[in-house]
């Protein structure tokens, strides 16, 4: 492969509310068995990219645990590998990553030592399948300096949280507005870019000299007319999960047969860390409808239109509806949960009720757990 990969996974967003307290967005569990970064990592490996750097900063414990071995995504080869870069204090630098461009710039040595001519930059908060090799071919064919992968705004999502792109019929980007107050069009940047490695190094060095640290605001937007920037239209499923609503909706999308078929059954696969859990167990009293259930779950109650992540225990006579229960949650008997996201490793006491009438409620319960 002629490209190295960089995954920006340092981010946090207030729009994730309590869910961001304990982990970076890239480590958010998605679709029962995965974490958000698995999609970008799997796309990298499935595109033949062998060398990938993951840049982390915000609360990266969960993420580091997930990335503790690179074998799940078939990295860790003699040629290439998975590198996790957190900010470090050096002779020249004593600051955190001050932005996406700064995060890459602080690891310029990695880029300088690579021999691959191109770089694919992706973010850790997208749920999609994409062959980056196709984007690279497009990039070369268009003789572009920077290619931005674009998608139509997902239905129901808010355009003002994205970069809005306008391009001519040939695909050349004519305008790029970051998080506009009012939108012109519905083509948004997915945060996936292809760029020549030497050009990236040059642009980052220049930005560093000017104390500019954001890849979009300080590189893409200023250069949008000076450099040949092209948009690559991705017309397959793509979601960005970094708001509570988008996160909830993306998980619920996996209850649709077409989405499941696309991600779970069609080649190439999405990979994730294997956790050695037993299969799910349905005891008498379990009544499950239109739901995803992951390994290690034990179910004794009613579950409808919900996503149960790994190792969830649902007690007797419980009712769980339209909810997302994250990893290793224990739900005591006679509990009623509707329209909630229950934070991982929570323990819900028996006879509780969490019913949200409008919108989505995030439940964080750190009760003592007496059961093994």
């Amino acid at each position: 492969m002629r490209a190295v990969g960089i995954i920006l996974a340092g981010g946090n967003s207030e729009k994730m509310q309590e869910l961001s307290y304990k982990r970076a967005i890239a480590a958010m569990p998605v679709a029962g068995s995965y974490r958000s970064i698995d999609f970008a990592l799997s796309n990298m490996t499935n595109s033949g990219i062998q060398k990938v750097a993951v840049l982390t900063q915000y609360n990266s414990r969960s993420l580091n645990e997930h990335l503790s071995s690179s074998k799940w995504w078939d990295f860790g080869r003699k040629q290439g590998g998975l590198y996790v870069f957190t900010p470090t204090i050096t002779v020249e630098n004593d600051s955190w990553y001050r932005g996406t461009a700064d995060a890459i710039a602080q690891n310029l040595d990695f880029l300088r030592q690579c021999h691959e001519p191109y770089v694919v930059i992706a973010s850790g908060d997208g749920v999609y399948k994409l062959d980056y090799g196709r984007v690279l071919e497009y990039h070369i064919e268009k003789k572009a300096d920077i290619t931005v992968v674009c998608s139509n705004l997902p239905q129901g999502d808010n355009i003002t949280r994205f970069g809005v792109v306008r391009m001519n019929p040939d695909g050349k980007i004519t305008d790029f507005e970051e998080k506009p107050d009012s939108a012109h069009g519905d083509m948004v940047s997915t945060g996936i870019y292809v760029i020549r490695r030497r050009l990236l190094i040059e642009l980052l060095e220049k930005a560093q000299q000017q104390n500019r640290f954001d890849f979009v605001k300080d590189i893409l937007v200023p250069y949008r007319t000076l450099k040949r920037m092209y948009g690559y239209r991705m017309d397959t499923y793509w979601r960005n999960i970094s708001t509570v609503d988008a996160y909830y909706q993306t998980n619920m999308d996996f209850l649709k047969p077409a989405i499941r078929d696309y991600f779970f059954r069609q080649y190439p696969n999405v990979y994730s860390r294997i956790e050695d859990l037993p299969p799910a167990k349905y005891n008498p009293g379990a009544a499950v409808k239109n739901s995803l259930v992951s390994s290690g779950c034990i179910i004794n109650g009613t579950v409808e239109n919900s996503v149960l992540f790994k190792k969830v225990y649902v007690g007797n006579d419980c009712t769980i509806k339209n909810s997302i229960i994250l990893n290793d949650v224990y739900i005591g008997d006679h509990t009623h949960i509707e329209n909630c996201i229950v934070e991982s490793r929570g323990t819900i006491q028996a006879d509780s009720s969490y019913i949200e009438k409008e919108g989505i409620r995030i439940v964080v319960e750190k009760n003592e757990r007496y059961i093994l």
Partner: protein
Amino acid sequence: MIKKEMIAMLLAGGQGSRLGVLTSKVAKPAVTFGGKYRIIDFPLSNCINSGVDTVGVLTQYQPLRLNTHIGIGIPWDLDRNIGGVSILPPYEKPVDTEWYTGTANAIYQNLNYIEMFHPEYVLILGGDHIYKMDYEVMLDFHKASQAAVSLAVMPVPWEEASRFGVVVTDETSRITEFQEKPEEPKSNLASMGIYIFTWSVLKEALLANKDVPECDFGKHIIPYCRAKGQKMVAYEYNGYWKDVGTLSSYWEANMELIDIIPEFNLYEEFWKIYTSGDIIPPQYISEDAQIHRCIIGDGTEICGRVENSIIGAGVVIQKGAVVKDSIIMKGTVIEENAVVEKAIIAENTRVGAGCVLGCGEEKPNRYKPEVYTDGLVTIGEDSVIPAGVRIGKNTAIIGKTEAADYPEGILESGESIIKDGDEA
């Protein structure tokens, strides 16, 4: 010098002919178990959980699935710089090339492998039991007893003792007598087929018996050691241990996992069982599904009714289908409105729409009455059952069957269709 205190030799070469068509294409240790595992995962996980990190797996019969499952041992953390798991098939030699003719002969042919690690002790394991056991505790017992050979034994009900090889011990656990399937057992301690040998003793015994045809541990090596006056002790084990060598015991062991708190609990944090799972997505339970007392593997899609069953990874059970008291293995599809009762259906099989499996009166199987028992319908892997046929009890099917194979659309109880060119 490389030095491992104890290494394990896992005998996984047997066909397991009493599992009928389930082992037509795979060795018994590679048969799936409990919706996610294969039988060999249990001894392999026991090894690594006991701190035994060097395991030789002796393969012979249909080894492909075993080889791909074990690979370099990553799921069991047995990919090691020194030791780890090694697959040991029979091999050609300048003279006297032969297959593994018996359990002890297989070990004899791999003396060089064992010698590489200069072990003090060698653990001999089989690949056909479901259990969790700490071999290190057994080794401590072996050392404390200053024994040359330790046999793991477990107490069985007296009335069943005559089905087993039993050992008679004195008050110090020293073995005084062996009885093979005795009519009047003097003891209820059944041998589990798990041995720890002091390596020097085993090596001497293997060399002395190298020309014995079909050299076997139970028949030759143990009697030889006994005749030489070596100290043999019985290590009593009191946990869950299940032989899954017959279709009915295999079915039963699977069903026992469904109990609310099963005697053999896979959900304990301690002593995990590892396996090589290649299916990651969660399972989907549809609007139309009904599930009662089941264990269901990853990536499965269920739209029908499933009761008292073990469903493997990646299985699809379509709308209107009913599955009861059955074991459905990885990747199998049960099409719309099919009814499956008390069946064992191996991997990647397709059961056509509207089929009825396990109907009618029970009759003994004509082909292999001792194998296909208990009213079970057994279907081998990669089989196809055409839509709309009815299949009776104590039946066996393997291969891509067509409507023409079922006169009047029926396979009567006790009949078999063996189409895959094998003599399972």
